[in-house]
């Protein structure tokens, strides 16, 4: 059984934020340890990429501002590059949000149902989400492939690397949704987040 200790190397703040340290699952069911471990590991890697993308985004827009008001090089790429960085970051962040259960639904109704039904419905909701992202991944591949034949406005690059954000993010979201579904099995509402609503 995986011990949910905040001092564990791979389990610190993220899991604590999800409230798991306060109320671990009642049962030690097969696959839970694997799901919790890999959900967290993948999420940490994604969040590292997110931090890098956000830092690049900040620097890129600063460069655009400095160029516009001081250097006047009239660079045409910072604006387009910033948009694509934002799209990559925002879409990748979906999987981080899934891992941490940041995406919140209306719980007033389902929260009043008996625990068995509630968990069943929440598992169903997770399954629908999983199917949604698998669909997006499947349709995103030809979309991204088509982008390699279209020229972007920056560096003479194609749109392929930027369009790839859709299938890549959908793939990560699918994997994360599968692991999170296995980790929580509809019990996440019974372990309320300690963190306030993000938005």
């Amino acid at each position: 059984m995986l011990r949910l200790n905040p001092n564990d190397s791979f389990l610190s703040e993220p899991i604590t934020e999800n409230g798991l340290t306060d109320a671990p699952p009642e049962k030690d069911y097969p696959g839970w340890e694997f799901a919790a471990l890999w959900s967290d590991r993948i999420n940490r890697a994604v969040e590292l990429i997110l931090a890098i993308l956000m830092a690049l985004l900040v620097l890129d827009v600063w460069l655009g501002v400095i160029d516009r008001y001081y250097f006047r090089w009239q660079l045409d790429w910072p604006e387009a590059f910033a948009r694509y960085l934002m799209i990559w970051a925002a879409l990748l962040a979906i999987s981080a949000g899934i891992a941490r259960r940041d995406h919140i639904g209306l719980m007033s109704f389902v929260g009043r149902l008996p625990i068995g039904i509630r968990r069943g419905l929440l598992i169903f909701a997770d399954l629908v989400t999983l199917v949604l992202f698998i669909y997006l991944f499947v349709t995103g591949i030809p979309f991204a492939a088509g982008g390699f034949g279209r020229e972007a406005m920056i560096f003479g690059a194609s749109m392929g690397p930027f369009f790839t954000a859709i299938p890549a993010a959908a793939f990560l979201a699918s994997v994360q949704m599968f692991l999170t579904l296995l980790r929580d099995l509809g019990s996440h509402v019974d372990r309320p987040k300690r963190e306030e609503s993000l938005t």
Partner: protein
Amino acid sequence: MIVAVVFVGLILIGMPIGFVIGAAGVVGLISLGGTSFLAISPSRIFAGLDLFPFLAMPFFILAGEIMNAVGITQRLVAFAQALVGRFRGGLAHSNMLASVFFAGLTGSATADAAAFGRTLVPAMVKAGYRRDYACAVTAAGSIIGPTIPPSGLMVIYGSLMGVSIAGLFAAGILPGLAIAVVCMGIIVIGGKRENLPVAERGATFAEIWATFKHSLTALFMPIIILGGILGGIVTPTEAASIAVAYALFLGGVIYRTLVWRDLYQMLIRTARITGVIFVIIAFANILGFWLTFERIPQAVAQAVLTLSENPYVIIAIIVALLLVVGMIMDITAILILLAPVLTPLTASIGLEPIHAGIIFVLALNISLMTPPVGACLFVLSSVTGETVERISIKLFPFLLAQIAVLFAFAFMEDVALALPRAFGFAN
């Protein structure tokens, strides 16, 4: 019909709203033509997010994260307390005034509610206020944040509807200040009934001056943001990036309270918040395709116009709809879904786009504190331990007053557009 059933059904079983919109959108595509439309989703998502004005949002979020982390809240609260702490219910007034100062930094109601719920509510309880009342005051003040610019909702509305974000920012200032004033009025009126404490002494001029100097650098932030944008010097996105630079400068150089290691978490948190909002925008572009294809906005406009053609009645219907839907749904999702649906209606009665935008934003902000799912109520409940029901009861007079402000600005176009017109953003 099937799309509506899927939408409502999935919402009821607790599926996150962004994913519900996506699933309903895909069902909508299938209902249009089997599998023939299914391939368009990725391009709809990419095109929907590929808007430069959206960039302002993560930057404003990041600036707010940094300002929060470097301890700006305490400075602003101290200044507000020095100014109005002398009156009966001084801490309640301070709470409201600090919300006004805070509004220029974050633009997030829940951030305001969380910050003040942790700091001001315990201080108010210690000073003799009832906890439910302290929470109600904090909730009422929290919506000033996203009303006075910068405001994430205004960025989304402006970007999606092609309306000047700077104009919306200008239009948000007066309603935000009006909400603060009427809420302070409610505090005064209910002061004796609630037996609100009176401070033993008011701050001296020297103390007010000292706290002012202490918070001056923070108070510059909204001046930089608004001055730059309204003066036409910088775009909202550029202003937001400058706000981040200024927040880093304050925390790293002036206050020296910024822990650079924490910046990593701030960047991640900003990305996560952006992701939560953008997934709604992304999927709304799929559902939006179905809505447009089925001519739902036109049908809604026609249906409402059959009820009445009186502009005031139509505005009242729109406001009521937003307030009611805001009780049960995430406000970002409502804005993204309903703004395109309701815009033909507002256009048909000759409502200026900025005026329509500020009505949407105000109504949705107010719905942040209406039960059963008002986000601010839940944030306050979770950080203070007070029940949502008890907060809601004490909140009721504030809610009524804010709805009155909303209707005043909705019905009086000249007042609502006074600042946008003064800065040349509206006719």
